[in-house]
């Protein structure tokens, strides 16, 4: 393990020291470490993946494999606000696609795209465990439930 390999704030590094204590095998810390890097930098670049590999003393492809397997880890930058609209069955039954269309029209981007000012990225995601309050979306870490077309407009307007 190479303790100096990570390019992070001292707060982040301290957090990682605490995290390592939780597991008898330090490889388990990969996922929490990737979250910390992503929270600090917005995404996990190839350089950061390489430094995580050096930090843990494992082949870089093992880190890459984890980043690419899990949908919440981003290998590339995205908008400041990542709008994730659920479109699995229960939300679809309650109008998820209308919500997607409202957002597309308002922000003038298609699914998978980012607004020119880098503010919003729109994606469709699978079930977020909020089927009883469908349709709904997650923006960054926050859930917005029981959406209507009006509410969506309000929410997007309120984000600076």
């Amino acid at each position, binding site marked *: 393990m190479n303790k100096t390999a990570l390019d992070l704030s001292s707060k982040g590094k301290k957090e990682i020291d605490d995290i390592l204590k939780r597991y008898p095998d330090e*490889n388990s810390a990969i996922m929490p470490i990737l979250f910390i890097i992503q929270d600090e930098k917005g995404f996990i670049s190839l350089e950061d993946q390489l430094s995580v590999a050096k930090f843990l003393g494992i082949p870089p492809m093992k880190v890459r*494999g*984890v980043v690419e397997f899990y*949908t*919440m880890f981003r290998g590339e930058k995205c908008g400041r606000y990542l709008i994730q609209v659920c*479109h*699995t069955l229960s939300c679809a039954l309650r109008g998820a*696609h209308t919500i997607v269309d409202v957002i597309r029209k308002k922000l003038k981007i298609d699914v998978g795209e980012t607004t020119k000012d880098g503010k919003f990225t729109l994606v469709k995601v*699978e079930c977020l465990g909020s089927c*009883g309050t469908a349709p709904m979306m997650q923006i960054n870490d926050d859930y917005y439930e029981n959406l209507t077309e009006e509410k969506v407009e309000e929410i997007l307007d309120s984000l600076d």
Partner: protein
Amino acid sequence: MAVEFEPVLTKYVDDPEQAKLSKYVERGGYKAAEKAVKSILPDDLISIVKESKLRGRGGAGFPTGVKWGFVPKDSDKPVYLTVNADESEPGTFKDRLLIEKDPHQLLEGTIIAAKAVGCETAYIYIRGEFYYGTKVLQKAIEEAYEKNYLGKNIFGTDMNLEVYIHRGAGAYICGEETALLDSLEGKRGYPRMKPPFPAVVGLYESPTVINNVETLCNLPHIINRGADWFASIGTEHSKGPKLFAVSGHVKKPGVYELPMSVRMRELIYDVCGGMLDENRKLKAVIPGGSSTPVITAKEIDVELCFDALQEYKTMLGSAGVMVMDESTCMVDAAINITRFYVHESCGQCTPCREGGKWLLRILQTIEKGTAKKEDIDLLLDICENIEGKTVCPFGEAMVWPIQGFVNKFRKEFEEHIENRGCPIEKDRSIRR
């Protein structure tokens, strides 16, 4: 009537104070954990839970006490407990309620389970999207450590219990218990061959018990009120209170706590206020999360328990009830669910990895109206080539919905092909 049921697990979920340790204790919380830790032997705890006939609430319904009993007593390795909070089955949102509104109930159940199997380190694997729930749980854990309900020498005994949160990062397959273990170990979430079973060779090659959130939340009540009380609720093989998460075309979607003797008709019409749009008739219901085969409007007198549903060629699963009215095209529904499984397939084994997208494509041509008559039987043949042939039950989870829709609504599939398009009058497409 079955629908009038005094809630046990969700008694205090409407009180925001319930998440605070002081309130939880005031209402009698952590007494069961204290009793279990201080004065009940592990083997006796296992017996009590076996007697209660508590079955896992994650979807498989395996008897919890029996699962605990598989942990070898003579292992020189530490025993781990992982709490499966990776709730990702479409239609299911009941664990989230328990985590966000009554986190101490979960922690108390974790302590009892840890005592029963001799565990000193427990990991709560919570899906990454449940950010709010993670924060609530973190706070609750801190409070519990402060009061020495967790940590070293809990309740003043020689038992230690560390509880850590480990966030998932967006992979439904990590709700499968062995994929969860691989993910916890820092790898891609690939399910493992069984045998060996996790109770013998699990996390870090040590004996490991994986329990669902709702399962663990039942434990304090079983200890407090007794196995007999628990077994008095429900049907012969499906005991104890059950959380049903209802969504779709109903007036009052949400989580409802009921015994498993409740019938689907009662759940939809009496509890959930009936159809969302009164002018539209009920057409189909998925009883237990997206991987369970659909039942028709004619079959809703079935009791929502592990056994009765099997007679309708479906299962209770995670009790995620998804209600569809007549504006829903069944092929659309099949496409939506199949798209979910294709997205979530881990890709480890051949049939699921390669067959899933093939199924999706065929369904899409049926919907568009460009399929051939033989394609329906092709669908079923592909499903047969996947079912039972995969490393983990994801293969079955992927094909059972398709088989369910085709078997119960075959005519609709055939009409799509004959009419070269969808015969349903629908105002929204749900498949995209």
